[in-house]
C-alpha cells in the first residue's frame, strides 16, 4: 500500500478552527519534553506554567491585562498579514506611542481633567502612526522592504526611549534612576477590579476586536484588504490600490501598537521607564497567526499567549525555571502552528500500488 500527499480542493471549516487547538496541545507536549530534558519535573512545571496562574482572581486580572496589548497589536498586524504587508516593527511603534503619550502626561502632570487620558491616547496613536509611516512611505515610494525598515526602527525607538529617560525626561527627584516622574492621577487608566491591576484598557481592547471584525467582514475596505492579499491580480483588475492597502494596514497596526504603548505606561507602569514592553510587539505576531488572522480568534489567542507570560513568571518563582522559557514556548507554538497548516492544504491518501492485481484470481 502506498500513500500519496495531494492538495485539498477545499479545506473543511472544522479543520481550520481545530488546528490551532491541536497546535497548542502539541506545543504543551513538546514543552513538557523540553522541561524534562532540562531537568525539571514536567508535570509540576506545566501546572505552575499553565494552571496555577489562573486559579486566583488576581491571576485572571493579570491575564486580561497582558492579553490587552497583545490582542490590540495583533488585530492590526493581522489585517496587514492578510494583505501581504509584513509590519514586524510593532514593538517600536508601541515604544513611540508610549513616548508620545508619556510626554503628554508629564507636561500635564498637574492638570486634573478628564481629557488628559484621551489626549494621551491620541498622542500615542499618532506616535505609533508616525513610526509606521516611515516603512509605508519607503515601501510605496521606493519599494523598500517594510520588514527590514520597521524592524530597524524598533531598535531606534527603544534607544530613543533610553535617551529620553536618561536625559530630558529623567525625574529630577528620582535619585538618578533612568525613569521619568510618576504620571498624575488623571493620566492613569481607571481600574476595573479593585485590588488588581486590570484597567479600562481591556474594554478598549474588546472594542478594537469588535470594530476590526466589522471592518474586515462587513466593509469594502476589509474586502479590499483580503482581495489584495489573496488574489493580487484580481485586486489590480478591480482597481484596488495596493499602495492604499499598504498605508491603511500599516497605519492601523502602528496606531493600535501606539495605543497599546500608552496603555502600558498609563496602566501598570505609570511612568516612562527604559523598557515599556516585554516584547509584546513581537509576540503579537504569534497571536495573530494563532488567532488565524481573525479578530475574534485573536481575542482568544491573546488570552492564551498572555498565559505564557504569567506562567513563565510563576514557574520562575515556583520551580526556578529561567524566564527565557516563555520565549521558547512562544516560538515553539508558532512553529507547530505553521506546520499544522500543512494538513489544511494537503491530505494523505492511500493509493494502491501501480499494476497491482485487482483480484487474487490473476496471481
Amino acid at each position: 500500500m502506498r500513500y500519496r500527499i495531494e492538495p485539498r480542493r477545499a479545506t473543511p471549516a472544522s479543520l481550520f478552527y481545530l488546528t490551532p487547538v491541536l497546535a497548542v496541545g502539541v506545543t504543551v507536549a513538546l514543552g513538557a519534553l523540553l522541561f524534562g530534558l532540562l531537568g525539571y519535573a514536567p508535570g509540576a512545571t506545566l501546572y505552575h506554567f499553565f494552571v496555577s496562574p489562573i486559579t486566583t482572581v488576581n491571576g485572571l486580572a493579570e491575564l486580561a491585562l497582558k492579553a490587552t496589548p497583545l490582542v490590540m497589536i495583533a488585530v492590526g498586524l493581522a489585517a496587514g498579514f492578510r494583505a501581504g504587508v509584513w509590519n514586524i516593527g510593532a514593538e517600536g511603534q508601541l515604544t513611540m506611542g508610549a513616548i508620545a503619550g508619556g510626554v503628554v502626561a508629564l507636561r500635564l502632570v498637574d492638570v486634573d481633567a478628564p481629557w488628559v487620558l484621551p489626549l494621551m491616547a491620541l498622542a500615542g496613536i499618532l506616535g505609533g502612526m508616525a513610526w509606521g509611516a516611515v516603512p509605508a512611505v519607503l515601501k510605496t515610494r521606493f519599494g523598500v522592504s517594510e520588514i527590514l525598515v520597521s524592524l530597524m526602527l524598533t531598535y531606534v525607538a527603544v534607544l530613543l526611549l533610553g535617551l529620553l529617560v536618561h536625559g530630558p525626561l529623567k525625574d529630577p527627584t528620582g535619585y538618578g534612576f533612568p525613569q521619568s516622574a510618576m504620571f498624575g492621577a488623571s493620566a492613569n487608566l481607571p481600574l476595573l477590579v479593585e485590588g488588581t491591576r486590570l484597567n479600562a484598557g481591556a474594554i478598549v481592547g474588546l472594542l478594537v476586536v469588535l470594530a476590526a471584525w466589522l471592518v474586515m467582514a462587513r466593509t469594502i475596505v476589509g474586502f479590499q484588504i483580503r482581495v489584495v492579499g489573496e488574489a493580487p491580480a484580481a485586486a489590480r483588475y478591480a482597481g484596488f490600490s495596493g499602495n492604499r492597502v499598504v498605508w491603511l494596514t500599516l497605519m492601523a497596526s502602528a496606531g493600535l501598537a501606539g495605543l497599546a504603548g500608552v496603555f502600558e505606561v498609563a496602566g501598570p507602569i505609570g511612568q516612562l521607564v527604559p523598557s515599556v514592553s516585554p516584547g509584546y510587539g513581537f509576540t503579537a505576531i504569534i497571536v495573530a497567526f494563532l488567532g488565524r488572522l481573525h479578530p475574534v480568534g485573536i481575542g482568544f489567542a491573546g488570552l492564551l499567549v498572555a498565559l505564557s507570560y504569567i506562567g513563565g513568571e510563576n514557574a520562575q518563582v515556583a520551580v526556578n525555571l529561567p524566564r527565557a522559557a516563555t520565549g521558547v514556548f512562544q516560538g515553539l507554538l508558532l512553529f507547530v502552528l505553521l506546520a499544522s497548516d500543512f494538513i489544511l492544504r494537503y491530505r494523505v491518501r492511500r493509493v494502491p500500488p501501480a499494476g497491482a492485481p485487482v483480484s487474487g484470481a490473476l496471481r
Partner: protein
Amino acid sequence: MSADVLVAILLTVITASTPLLLAALGELVTERAGVLNLGVEGMMLMGAVTGFAVTLATGSWPLGVIAAALAGAALALVFGVLTLTLVANQVATGLALTIFGIGVSALIGAGFVGKPLPALPKLSLPGLTDLPIVGRVLFGQDVLVYLSILMTGVVAFVLNRTRLGLVLRAVGQSDVSAHAIGYPVIRIRYGAVLFGGLMSGLAGAYLSLAYTPLWVQEMTAGRGWIALAIVVFAAWRPGRALVGAYLFGGVTILQLYAQGAGLVAVPSQVFAMLPYLATILVLVIISAGPWRRGLDAPACLGKPFRPAA
C-alpha cells in the same frame, strides 16, 4: 592620525564586519535558491551560545566553532522542514525561528552569563605579523576572519563558475522550469538553507568567541537583520556583500570611536542608532537610485513550491 590609531581602527572594523559577512554570505546563497529565511538572528544566537558552551565545556575552540555551525544548521533544518517540506509561509517561519532562537539561546545560556573565555587565537607568523601597519591586519587575524574572506571567493566561484551554482540559481529564478527539466528543487533548496544555517552559526560563534568572548543574552543586537539588509544591498552578489559588510562594520566602529572621542554633548544612544539608520538609508538609496536595474531579487524568492506528485 598616527599609523597606530589607523591600524587599531582597521582591526576593529574587521572584527565588527566579520560576523556580518559570514551571516550575509549564508543568507545570500539561501536567497539565491529562492528561499527567504528571516531567522538569521535566531540562528546566530544559537551558534553564539552553542559555540560558547562547547568551548567552555571542552576547552577546545575548534570544537566550539564546529558545534556552533551545526547548531545554526540544526535550526535551519527546522526552517527547511517547515517551509520546504510542509510549505509553510517563509516570512512567518523565519520570524518564528528568530523568536525561538532568542528564547532557547537565553535558556541554554542562563548559566554562562558573566563567565570569561579566552578569545580565539590569532595567527602569528614570525616576520610577517610584525610588519608595520599591514602585519597585524593581514597576518594577525583569527581563523574565522580568514574563513569569511575565503568563503566570499568560494561562494562567488561556485555561484558563477560551476554547474552547481548554475542549477542553484536556476532553482531560485524559476523553480517550475528547474523542476521540469529534472533538477531536485527541494533538495537543492534544503542544501542552500542548511548552508545559510552553518554560516549564521559561524557568525554567532565569532560574536561569542572572538568579538566579545562572553555570552550575553541577545548579544547579536540586530546583526542578523543587518545581514539580511546587506544581502539586498549586495544585490545578491558575494563580492558586494563583502563591501556591504565592511561598510556596516565601519559605521558600527565609527560610532564607537565617536563616542570615545568625547563628544559629550551627543548622547551615546544617538550613536548607537547609527547602524540601524544607516541600514534604512542604504536600503532606500539602493532601491531608489538609477542603478536599480539589474539588482532584482531572485524571481522565486519567498514563494512556496511543491512539486506535483
